[in-house]
């Protein structure tokens, strides 16, 4: 399969790999996918006192498109409010990386991961 340069760049030089302290109050963690399906994404956000996402980290088990999608999303969410981050659509990811049709679900997973991380953060701070 021929992949776009942007996708390959994110695969080869993934941004923001790693983990944040999942027990910390200002960290939201999303863990989506399933090993049996061949894809698992862990995406974490750290929200600053000003309400902006100041850090984001990911780890992904999955194909190159899944890795690139999660890497891209960590870049996009930084500096955004969680409400803004929540509006990121899988179609934006797929378009930016020029994902082939069979790989669209990998971008869906990245959208799910950011939503799950936000939900986790919100449940921690107890606000809606």
């Amino acid at each position, binding site marked *: 399969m021929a*992949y776009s340069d942007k996708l*390959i760049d994110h*695969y080869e030089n*993934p941004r923001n*790999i790693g*983990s944040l302290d999942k027990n910390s109050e200002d960290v939201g963690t999303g*863990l*989506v*996918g*399933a*090993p*049996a*399906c*061949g*894809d*698992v*994404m*862990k995406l974490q956000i750290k929200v600053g006192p000003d309400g902006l996402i100041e850090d984001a980290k990911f*780890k*992904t*088990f*999955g*194909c*190159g498109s*899944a*890795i690139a999608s999660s890497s891209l999303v960590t870049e996009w969410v930084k500096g955004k409010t969680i409400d803004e981050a929540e509006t990121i659509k899988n179609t934006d990811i797929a378009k930016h990386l020029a994902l082939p049709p*069979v790989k669209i679900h990998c971008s869906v997973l990245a959208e799910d991961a950011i939503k799950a991380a936000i939900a986790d953060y919100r449940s921690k701070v107890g606000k809606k």
Partner: protein
Amino acid sequence: MNVHTQIRRNDQPIYLDYQATTPLDPRVLEAMMPYFTHQFGNPHSRSHSYGWEAEEGVEKARAQVAKLVGADEKEVIFTSGATESNNLAIRGVAEFYKDRKNHIVTTVTEHKCVLDTCRHLEQQGFEVTYLPVQKNGLIDLDALRAAITDKTVVVSIMAVNNEIGVIQPLAEIGKICREKKVFFHTDAAQAAGKIPLDVEAMNIDLMSISGHKIYGPKGIGALYVRRKPRVRLVPLIVGGGQERGFRSGTLPTPLCVGLGEAAEIAMNEMDEEAKRLTKLQQRMLKGLQDRLPEIFVNGDLEHRIPGNLNISFAYVEGESLMMGIKNLAVSSGSACTSASLEPSYVLRALGVDEELAHTSLRIGLGRFTTEHEVDTAVDELVRHVKKLREMSPLWEMAQEGIDIKSIEWAAH
């Protein structure tokens, strides 16, 4: 010119996919060349020397193929490849004997062309038993014995599996089939020229062979059809009645000659090549095992051709690994590489966990693989598996002692 630069340009990745196909041996190409140029005659033309010369080339090739498997040359017919041979063998026999028998026995790990042929026959009203395999990929002979009924016409079991390289117990299967008086067909696309085959000693009645798996050309194969006791087939392709009526159409002389030459070379060099490949296989496996924990070989290591390794690199998804090792041409059992997004049915049939099936690579070694290529491949694999494990949430959990099976994943 050195053989290696003939096979691979320096800017091409290292070829480690010898079960997908093999490069043409330069000696085979040389044997074929005259039949592309001045010896272009129709091998079925009887009235002039062009025809006679082409016929001579084809008949020599037929004898070369026959010799490789211990057959008589009259028992070998040329086809377009193992796909056609498998179709012809199974459909041909089933059709011919359908008034008396309607049952076929095969295995779940056969190549798609055998499985699809069987599915097609099921739609026509035949019954098919798909034997399971054991954890090591081999069939259980008692299960085979139990599956054969007095309605069984043919047992079709592959000699060597294309994904995991395991060798089925052909002689034992042949013995059972002969005792029970059913035909034994074997898809030997991955076995011919790699392991000794003898249609007499193994009681094989039909055998499929492919040119491009044995350093011969693509688009040519053969089917061995036993004459004593005689196996009858309904042909798939009718017309001029060539190939004893089993397969009409003008034979592609250069391709036949190439298959013959490839068969002869494989026969002469089989022992040496097997020894060399066994060393390379062990070097590759040891190199990986010494430097990477939690890797697992799929399929039996003993009953296996030396040119195959199929390894699960736990916690690293196969397609992402292949994207990393750009300098290596391998294939994967991962779902993410397949159009169907299903992991390998062969690995699933062995009972390999789905999550491990996603992490598998098939590494094929062959005639032109060098020690240096193996070492380079090991280095690349180790580097990228480590890098991807650092990125893997599953690896992280495993390091923290979390059992990933204990988590409730939302399957999607």
